[in-house]
């Protein structure tokens, strides 16, 4: 590996850190830690965006980096922490599959994403095209996080992590999305978190718990039975 410029090395490091963080989120059971990992993921994205902005001299990417910092590193984690405190949900219940099984499936997903991304990387023209595979892997791993969790809060974190992965994919494949799209997506994510917060209160009112198994019963009398 001779002569790779330093900023590209840093970008590769950021990509590897993103992958590591998604794995860490897969196995974390404390919801407070999940949100903190999400914040760290946001900051890694911020650094990556800054590096790409510096490398390609595109001014709008600085704006995008600032948006990432404001939204993903500061605002959203703050909102989520507030929700956690008010809902008093600190721990997730036992995940659907045990830790070892989840990690095994995670590794298989990573291999699948890497294999999938290799022909796509050949078509892209950016310097960071090798990292597309990592972006796909982050998206799929976040999806897996959403599937294997029982508390609604962890699923929201998984959803946000998926959006992070998509953002990183766009960054590495095409050096960022058009600013209109970015603003739109950021607004959507913010609104989604606010609405979901309200939703969680309603769920807790109804079932006295945020465990999503309670949402599975589709009929009224089954719900009444469970509450007795």
């Amino acid at each position, binding site marked *: 590996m001779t002569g790779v410029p330093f900023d590209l090395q840093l970008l590769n490091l950021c990509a590897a850190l993103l992958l590591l963080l998604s794995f860490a989120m897969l196995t974390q059971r404390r919801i407070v830690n999940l949100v903190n990992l999400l914040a760290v993921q946001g900051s890694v994205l911020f650094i990556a965006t800054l590096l790409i902005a510096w490398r390609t001299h595109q001014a709008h990417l600085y704006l995008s980096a600032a948006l990432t910092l404001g939204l993903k590193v500061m605002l959203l984690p703050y909102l989520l922490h507030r929700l956690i405190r008010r809902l008093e949900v600190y721990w997730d219940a036992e995940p659907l599959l045990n830790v*070892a*099984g989840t990690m095994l499936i995670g*590794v298989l997903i990573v*291999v*699948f994403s*890497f*294999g999938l991304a*290799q*022909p796509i990387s050949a078509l892209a023209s950016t310097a960071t095209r090798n990292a597309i595979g990592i972006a796909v892997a982050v998206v799929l791993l976040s999806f897996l996080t959403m599937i294997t969790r029982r508390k609604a809060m962890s699923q929201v974190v998984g959803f946000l992590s998926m959006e992070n992965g998509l953002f990183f994919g766009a960054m590495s494949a095409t050096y960022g999305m058009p600013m209109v799209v970015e603003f739109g997506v950021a607004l959507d994510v913010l609104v989604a978190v606010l609405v979901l917060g309200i939703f969680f209160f309603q769920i807790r009112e109804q079932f006295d718990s945020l465990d999503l198994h309670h949402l599975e019963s589709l009929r009224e009398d089954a719900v009444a039975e469970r509450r007795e």
Partner: protein
Amino acid sequence: MIALLHSPLDACLTLLALWGLIGLAGLLRPRSLRYVGRTLFPLGALCAAALAVVAFTSLSAPPERAVLIVGLPDLPMHLRRDALSSLFLFMLGAASAGISVFAAGYFRRGHGTSAGLLCLQYHLFLASMGLVLLADDAYAFMVAWETMALSSYFLVTTQHGLGEIRRAGFLYLLIAHVGAIAILLAFGVMQGGSWQFTFDAMRQAHLRPVWASVAFLLALVGFGAKAGLVPLHVWLPEAHPAAPSPVSALMSGVMLKTAVYGVLRVSFDLLGGPQSSWGLVALAVGLFSALYGVVFAAAQTDMKRLLAWSSIENVGIIFTGLGLAFVFRGVGMRGLAALALIAVLYHALNHSFMKSLLFCGTGAVLHSTGERNLGRLGGLIRHMPWVAWLSLIGALALAGLPPLNGFVSEWLLLQAFLFAHQVPQTFVNMLLPLGAALVALAAALAAYVMVKFYGVIFLGQPREATLLRAHDANVLERIGLVWLALGCVTLGLVPAQVVAALRTVVRQVAHVDLPNPTAPWWLLEPLPGRQASYSGLAFFVAVTTVVLLTIFGVRLFYHRRVRHAAPWDCGFARLDARMQDSAEGFGQPIRHIFEPFFAMQRELPSPFDRAPRYRVFIGDRIWQRLYEPLGSLVQKVADTFAVLQQGRIATYLLYSFITLVALLAVVL
């Protein structure tokens, strides 16, 4: 006489015929143990040793053919001996020489079958295995294969008075025949329209890739059933403990390898070269078998079942290497295919010695203590030193520790995996290094299993008072064990020579080769220029030198005074032998970590029991999910067809009438 020996093939056939004669000679005086044990079995061992010598010297000889006018008219038996047959014949001869000598001292009065009949079945088993390795057409192959299955069935059910042994034999025969049907179908596909079932016709029939894959899959199922691949493995943990120990040794050590020979013959020779997709199938099945086998071995409480599951693990590793070789050959990486294939053949050779040694050791233990259950053994190293120290060599070899032979084949396999990322296919080149991780895990678990096996049987305190009267093996048993242990040690100390011999086999059969070695004779360097080398002999010398220097140094500068006292009991004076780790206890971490593999049922005691008991039944999930539903399905189908059996003669006459009318309508 000389004319009979002028070619290696004739010599092999003569020795096989001699085995048959020895077997028949056992019928002359069937009840005399002295005659059978002291004369016939050692003679059989001599024939085996001669076979090993003939096979070894003919490794580099060109292939030769013969036709035996035995069998049906117009359907003679074609025979052919090439390098692959010679290698497996060497394995058969060398391993069975040691096992036959052991068996000579092992068989005693009290078994179900009489000694003479046992002699016939045993030598017929050996001769049929030899014939399988020499067969050159489907007819001879299937005749020999069936003889092998039948004679081993009778050997497994030696103690046919016990119901569980009969049941184990039945299961064995059932799966052997399922496999035989699959092999027959594979031959049917491979003849490719010429309706000639000689192997030469199959070599010249060029099948389309789809049909070649079908033939390979059928062969994999058929030979995999005999080798014990998951999910067709269920007969192994039942049949091996049921059979007498020399028979288990022969089955595990040699019979499983004939199945590997079958797969090699079909894929490299008859089908003209493997496709890489076959390699992925073999790899997946092999890795799963390896992991499944070793995890179950760690949870066993019967010493022979533990060794049987360990055989399943080793067969899995062999098929993993085979899959890797197929992948490499399929994409055209010939040097690496040679490396993987040599690792496979080396492991097969190693396993036949290691496993036979351990099975014979357990046979000696069973004889002297009458116990198979690990929970009633212990501390036998003091009463049976010969068996204990020779079994230690076997256990260390099976655990894959240098400088013994188990390590060398693992080293070669891992070296082959190191280059797997160069395969040009996208997903494959990332999945294969993960396969290396699983092989490493299986190898580490094998060490765990061997520590459990050796530690619970031979070390520690005796768990039953009767063990204090255990006696060591007799002379013949000792000679057999020493022979097998010497095989293990030799294969570990001179790996470069073994690899050189295996290169001739691989060159002739698969047309791939390693580059010529540039290293000295005591160093194994399969791929010169990669700087990866290993020397068993030098390693052994280095470690022994340091150990001896340490011992002498300590004695020179200090002293060797020793006092004996009671062991550390942490202040609890009533420490007894029952407080040692039992076999269940030693396997508990594995049961805890790999819980999804097992179907466990626990009986827990309650605080109100007068005689509290804890029981755990460990079942095979594959048996519960695959075989039991299949069995009940077959039963249901059979029951619906039982409607046809009315029992009334008029109905049967009606069936014959309908058939006759239908045939007349068709013909006219």
